[in-house]
């Protein structure tokens, strides 16, 4: 039975880790931690179910459609809640603007999609009853691997990736060298939308297509990057998987009522002991 707890923990942890990677991608170019990050995943699940289950589109079309919704949502997030705010103010007003967007997305989906969870279709033909080999457990893990490797290759091998890193390290210097930072930031939000939608789609059978998932995933994704180290993709993956497994074990040993309390308790302890997270770099302020 412990095996099933670990498998479940890894599956849900993979979803948290993917959400954390989406956080990181947006953070790298804007230094914004968007409250609507989890909602990108929710949109992937809901629109995947809508395209395939409700409209009856082929799975591949539904999959691409869900990813497109994520990309558009990511772009709109940057355009509406981030661009003007960070260009005009150094204060953390993006916290309010992204919270407002998250609430609007959630309410809109609730009104349109309904407030009850709805089923997510089988992505690959497979009989139910396969136990731990069921696709609902390994699809989120596969999605995480694809996202993590894809991001690494993107950053290392492509010119855009190097520009992302340049903007991440010093946006002012990058702009001075002619890098269109607004466009790069918008591109990073579209990539985050793609990541979120892919993760939400892959985990749809595990979570159902449910309007209220966004806030939970935002919280868990945030804990994952805080544990792993803000800005570190390795940290996001390790933090997410750790959080998923830990939540499952806590629920298994102590019961569901302690699950979130202990998970957030661990976050606080790690932040006290190692404020930069497990894989984060210490910030040194030059004087």
């Amino acid at each position, binding site marked *: 039975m412990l095996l099933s707890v670990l498998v479940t923990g890894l599956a849900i942890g993979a979803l948290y880790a993917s959400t954390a990677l989406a956080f990181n991608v947006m953070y790298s170019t804007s230094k914004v931690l968007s409250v609507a990050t989890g909602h990108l995943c929710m949109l992937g699940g809901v629109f995947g179910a809508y395209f395939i289950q409700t409209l009856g589109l082929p799975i591949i079309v539904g999959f691409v459609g869900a990813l497109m919704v994520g990309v558009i949502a990511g772009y709109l997030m940057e355009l509406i809640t981030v661009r003007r705010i960070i260009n005009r103010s150094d204060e953390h007003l993006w916290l309010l603007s992204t919270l407002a967007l998250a609430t609007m997305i959630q309410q809109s989906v609730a009104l349109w999609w309904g*407030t009850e*969870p709805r089923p997510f279709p089988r992505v690959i033909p497979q009989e*139910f009853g396969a136990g731990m080999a069921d696709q609902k457990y390994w699809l989120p893990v596969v999605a995480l691997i694809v996202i993590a490797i894809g991001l690494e290759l993107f950053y290392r091998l492509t010119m855009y990736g190097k520009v992302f890193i340049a903007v991440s390290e010093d946006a002012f210097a990058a702009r001075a060298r002619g890098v269109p930072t607004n466009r790069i930031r918008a591109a990073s939000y579209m990539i985050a939308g793609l990541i979120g939608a892919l993760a939400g789609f892959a985990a749809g059978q595990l979570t159902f297509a*449910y309007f209220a*998932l966004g806030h939970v995933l935002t919280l868990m994704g945030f804990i994952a990057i805080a544990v792993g180290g803000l800005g570190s993709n390795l940290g996001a993956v390790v933090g997410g998987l750790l959080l998923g497994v830990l939540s*499952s074990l806590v*629920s298994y040993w102590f019961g*569901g009522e302690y699950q979130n309390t202990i998970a957030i308790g661990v976050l606080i302890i790690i932040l006290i002991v190692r404020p930069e997270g497990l894989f984060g770099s210490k910030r040194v302020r030059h004087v």
Partner: protein
Amino acid sequence: MRAKLARRSVLGLSLMLGASFIAPAWADDAKPIRIGWLSSLTGPLSSAAIAENIGVQFAVDEINAAGGIDGRKLELVTRDTMGDPTKAVNFAQQLAFNEKVDFVIGPVNSGESLAATPILARAGIPQIVIGTVDELTNPKLYPRAFRAIATNSQWVKGANDYVLDKLKLNKIAIIGDTTGYGTATVKQAEAMLKERGVTPVYSVLIDANKADLTDEIGKAKAAGAEVIMTWSAATGLLGRILNTRGEMGWDVPVVGHPALMGTPIRDLLNKPEYWDNTYASGYASMTIDENGKFPERTQQLMDAVKPKLGGKIDFTFWWIALGYDAVKILEHAIKKAGSTDPAAVQKALEETQGLELVYTTYSWGPDDRNGFPDEDIVINLANTFTDGGFKKAPHQ
């Protein structure tokens, strides 16, 4: 001439004063009876409220079409609480002190009701309670709050009695969610089983969004459970319980909360047969008999409402019946009291015995604010949904 004018002025003034004394009485008789309706029409808990609203609106239209109550029309003042207790409190205050309604129906959800009922009690407004949590009624604290729906204890007792007396099973696993409702009801269910000399072999609270329940259902099985009892209204959690039981090939009965019968569950099941052997607390009025017929009063309301629903009822009909009855209870109370005076209405309801409406036959008393009788709780077979009702579970 001046004396004549003075006499006319005095006469005119007297007529005006007289008219002003007469006018309020006349106006009071003709002015509409205002019913506040606190309903979570949007938001995460809207399914029940939307259906109840159909019943409430239908009853109001029906009464108004027949000329109102003692010649006074009903006016519904609806406020959408969105399932939020804070909004419910604000709207309860608004209805009581700004809108000055005569009565209030709702709020729909127990959490909202726990917050709003004390305010309505302080304002002295008669309230029809449609939340199930037991603490919502109390003749001393809330003397004018009368409950129309069954209580949570009645649901739990009905399910416990069915498991122990009809299925003859006493190795019980209890599963609830980590919400206030789930936590409190699991404790209540454990206490009520203890009174019957039974201790559950396994009891657990689960986060309603937990994605996989293999370990919990596995533990229940390992503990030797012969039946799973669920106390949660979270559709996702209930769907996962049934899916996990099905995929484990563990064919024990699942008995519990009425949400187990809800149609959204059907859509979440990996296979339709995972809904077999599942039973939930339901109502005699919504139970189809051996001949496939509903009780007469239920059928009459169904026939009347169906055209408005496009000829099809695809949600549990008791929500509509409860909304309809809530208005009809007020009609009964006003007629019996002969006015809308709160104290008279309270007395009229306290003296009400055997009021036959659609959802049930109600009785209240000076020390009893729960109108739903125990004997009208029936255990239904979950996967037999037809026109908003269900078949009776076996062995009853």
